[in-house]
């Protein structure tokens, strides 16, 4: 991708990347991800369970915890979830949880499940805190972060999930909207954040596939999933693929995201945060397979 600020729809038409841009994926692989990899690929775990929510949308905490354990085990390549957590976090870490607070927020049950898992891995309760928000002092004190947004479309940035989740730390959120959504990757390079994210856990229990970030049940569905990985861009690109597949299923034809989520490919190509290239992502799927919308 050339400088995205100069891009027009025609540029995507000319080089045949309109579909790729709509999906937010890079068209060649030159990332410098430091993420965990398998055979050169970034591992993303997708775990789903039909029973994680009941017909009143109440979350079954035990089922969710099983999903989380399975996803962390897979994403870390360890033999158990406990080993996976211990690989990522040490007892002397100060761990900041960064869920989405408002407008299709991360389920509180997921925050609680992650907190419990961290404690079981030996991180004391007083070294785990929710640091989402505009105050950066709590983030500065953290030695490790867990990015845990909910999966949703955003009318100002295309997608409002992983890459946008740290935007409040920048203190200038609006400056990353519209033409500057491609710069969202820069937030991940801010000194208070850079290099601290050990794992990304996306709440895909009930994603929002249009008109976000404000909730609209017409565009929400029970996907009952968690997306987990250590490469933030790979996790974002995978979530975006699910969103795009859902949009296509809803309309019966390709339904482009507007504005296009330029931030996803830019996070790969310009900021080196990970890979958005599906060919370099090892997607590992387990659990409920109805209406999966994506294949490994």
């Amino acid at each position, binding site marked *: 991708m050339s400088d995205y600020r100069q891009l*027009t729809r025609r540029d995507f038409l000319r080089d045949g990347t309109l579909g790729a841009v709509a999906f937010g994926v890079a068209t060649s692989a030159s990332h410098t991800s430091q993420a965990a990899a398998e055979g050169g690929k970034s591992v993303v775990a997708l775990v789903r369970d039909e029973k994680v929510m009941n017909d*009143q949308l109440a979350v079954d905490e035990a089922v969710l915890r099983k999903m989380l354990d399975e996803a962390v085990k897979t994403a870390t390549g360890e033999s158990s979830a406990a080993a996976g957590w211990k690989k990522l976090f040490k007892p002397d870490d100060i761990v900041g949880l960064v869920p989405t607070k408002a407008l299709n927020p991360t389920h509180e049950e997921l925050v609680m499940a992650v907190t419990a898992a961290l404690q079981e891995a030996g991180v004391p309760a007083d070294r785990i805190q929710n640091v989402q928000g505009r105050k950066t002092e709590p983030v500065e004190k953290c030695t490790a972060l867990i990015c845990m947004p909910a999966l949703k479309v955003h009318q100002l940035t295309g997608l409002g999930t992983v890459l946008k989740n740290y935007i409040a730390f920048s203190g200038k959120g609006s400056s990353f909207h519209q033409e500057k959504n491609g710069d969202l990757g820069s937030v991940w390079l801010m000194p208070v954040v850079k290099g601290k994210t050990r794992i990304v856990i996306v709440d895909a229990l009930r994603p929002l596939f249009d008109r976000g970030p404000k909730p609209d049940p017409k565009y929400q569905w029970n996907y009952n999933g968690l997306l987990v990985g250590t490469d933030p861009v790979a996790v974002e690109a995978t979530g975006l693929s699910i969103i795009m597949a859902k949009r296509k299923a809803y309309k019966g034809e390709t339904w482009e995201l507007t504005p296009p989520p330029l931030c996803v490919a830019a996070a790969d190509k310009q900021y080196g945060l990970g890979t958005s290239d599906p060919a370099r992502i090892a997607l590992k799927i387990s659990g409920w397979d109805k209406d999966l919308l994506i294949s490994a």
Partner: protein
Amino acid sequence: MQGLSPVSAGEKPVHLALPAEIEGWKITTPESRQVTPKTIFDYMNGAGELFLAYDFRALYVWKYERPDHQPITVEAYEMGSPEEAFGVLSNDLDGENVGVGQHSVYGAGLLRFWQGRWFFSVLVELETSESRRAVLTLGRVLEAQVAREGERPRLLARLPSQGLVPESVHYFHTRICLNSYYFFAVENLLELDQKTDAVMGEYRFGKQRAGLLIICYPTSGAATKAHAHFRDRYMGGLEISPKPLEMARLENGEWVGLRLDRDYLVVAFKSSSRDVCERLLRAVNLQRGGKQQ
């Protein structure tokens, strides 16, 4: 339970009162939460920009809860004019018109409608027969407290009616809104701002399709400048038919067309054929007081 709107000189304040209980849901907010243009980002983060783009003045929020049921959130947005209130609704007109307010859209538990200078949203995330009743009743309670005044933006009448997909219509001013409906470019090629009025819609003629955008600029000079900017940057290098209908075929076979007329710029886009592109550009009646075909 009340919310009191701020007023301009000469206007009477509007008191909005909501029932303490509805269909088993009980109000949990003793007073409505008031959100202002300065605090809207605290309430909804960056999404506030979409409301500020429509002359947002104030927002009042109430919550209802019922054990073992999803909560209901009631939002009353006071905008600068009825046109702006309609504009917010036009963010998404796809849904059932349930006859609340001057136009309503309902789907899956979310009721949105406009009346006068107000835009309302009543949301429950899980639709049941009870929750639907509660949401619609709350809508009617609000509707009864706000005067029916004002009309839809006049510019909407410039959209040709033949072939128009009604739920695809949007009214807006700025690039923020345009880009969330259709992406032309990262740059502000059409030079949109708070002083521009714009309407757009999707057209279908059998299997043929196109989009149509009509922009009214504050001056003909501003329209001419935007026309040149868009033509140069978006249509540069293409074979363009001569004025007054400047049409060109894009690399993927879609057609794009421009028509500049005084302070109006008409853009046909994503057109599946030259014929449809030309037909739409010609169908827009830009005569003062003119009616549409």
